[in-house]
């Protein structure tokens, strides 16, 4: 005989429900169902689900069928027992059942109204929650920006405060009239910072790049991120001048000297 899982997997329980199990297997299956609680539970679930499916797909038959059924039964079965006390109780349950029907209907109505109210509340809470979440995300992003700005300001303040820091003004040429940047170089700490707040915005496909001139060769100090006011760049040893060029987005390996917009000798 198959084990429990094999029975479940083979679909025998569904076939048993439909009355499609051959007689020779029927006795064994019923014996197993009687002895195996888990298998019986599984079958009970399938039975309940099929009953639910039938109830959901119920179609009300015409009233006369019931009348015909009782007429036929009374005619065919003379031995139908209708006890006098049960006769008397037939009327009462009707009235009782009507009362219960009203109570049930009222409860159902209350249940429906409260469910609707709860749904409305839930929906509104959900919207509020989404709005709050958006506001929270917004605030979080603002805090991150402020933290970034604070970090930059602190960095700049620390660099400026340092007596070893030298300040260089990089005035823009006619390619960026009015453009201006300030570089802070500390040869002791070997750090280079530039304030690019006053460099004009470039088109999206271009970027500023800073270079250090070492023995006539331009060495990249890094691409200038214009979304920040203060940019930390690579310190170049023995650089004799600082230079800013306009390069394609992402920066270049070699400086495009024709696009030099500013420079200062150290």
């Amino acid at each position: 005989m198959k084990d429990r899982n094999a029975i479940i997997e083979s679909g025998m329980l569904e076939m048993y429900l439909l009355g499609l199990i051959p007689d020779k297997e029927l006795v064994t299956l019923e014996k197993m169902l009687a002895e195996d609680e888990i298998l019986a539970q599984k079958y009970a679930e399938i039975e309940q689900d099929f009953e639910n499916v039938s109830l959901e797909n119920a179609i009300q038959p015409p009233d006369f069928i019931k009348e015909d059924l009782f007429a036929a039964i009374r005619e065919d079965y003379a031995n139908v027992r209708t006890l006098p006390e049960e006769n008397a109780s037939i009327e009462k349950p009707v009235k009782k059942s009507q009362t219960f029907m009203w109570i049930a209907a009222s409860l159902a109505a209350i249940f429906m109204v409260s469910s609707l109210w709860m749904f409305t509340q839930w929906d509104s809470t959900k919207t509020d929650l989404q709005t709050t979440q958006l506001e929270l995300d917004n605030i979080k992003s603002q805090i991150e920006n402020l933290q970034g700005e604070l970090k930059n300001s602190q960095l700049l303040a620390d660099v400026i405060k340092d007596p070893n820091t030298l300040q260089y003004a990089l005035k823009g040429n006619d390619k960026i009239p009015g453009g201006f940047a300030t570089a802070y170089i500390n040869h002791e700490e070997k750090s280079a910072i530039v304030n690019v707040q006053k460099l004009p915005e470039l088109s999206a496909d271009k970027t500023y790049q800073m270079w250090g001139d070492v023995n006539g060769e331009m060495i990249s100090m890094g691409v200038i991120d214009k979304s920040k006011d203060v940019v930390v760049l690579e310190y170049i040893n023995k650089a004799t001048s600082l230079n800013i060029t306009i390069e394609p987005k992402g920066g270049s390996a070699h400086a495009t000297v024709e696009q030099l917009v500013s420079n200062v000798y150290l």
Partner: protein
Amino acid sequence: MSNDTIYIERFQNRDETALSKLYDMYSGAIYGVIIRMCRNEEAAQEILQETFMKAWDKSHLYDASKGKFYTWLYRIARNTTLNFLRKDQKLIQTEDLSVYKDAGVEENENLHVELKGALSKLDEHHQTALKLVYFNGLTHKEAHEEMGVPLGTFKSYVRQAVGKLRDIYAKELLVLICILELLT
């Protein structure tokens, strides 16, 4: 002891009140099955009456330890309908259509028998598989030929469909419990 159990016991003792109660509880569900199987309103009404007559007659054979009362009733309805369809088929095959017509039996394709509830939420192939065996009364062998898929595949469809029904009903029950918890 639940109300159902009391009614069933009284029904087995041939109590008409209990029969009336059980008829009210299950006639709609059983009629829904019969009418989908035979797709003939007039015949379905006769078969419904016959089903309850048989159940009344054989009520002593119902054993609650072997399954639910509804399942037992469903099997009677299914067999009664299949017998009707077999007889009906024979009449058509012998071309004795006069008898067929005299019986006042006319097929009605416009019956509102579309599937509702959890079953209608299943994928189409799962829905069809359950419909064929449960509402059309086909055996697995007949049903897999009807669907045009191998028997093993068809059996898997039925198993998967039953599993999905379980999930749907379990979820609905959980939601109901949550709502009741919130209300209390």
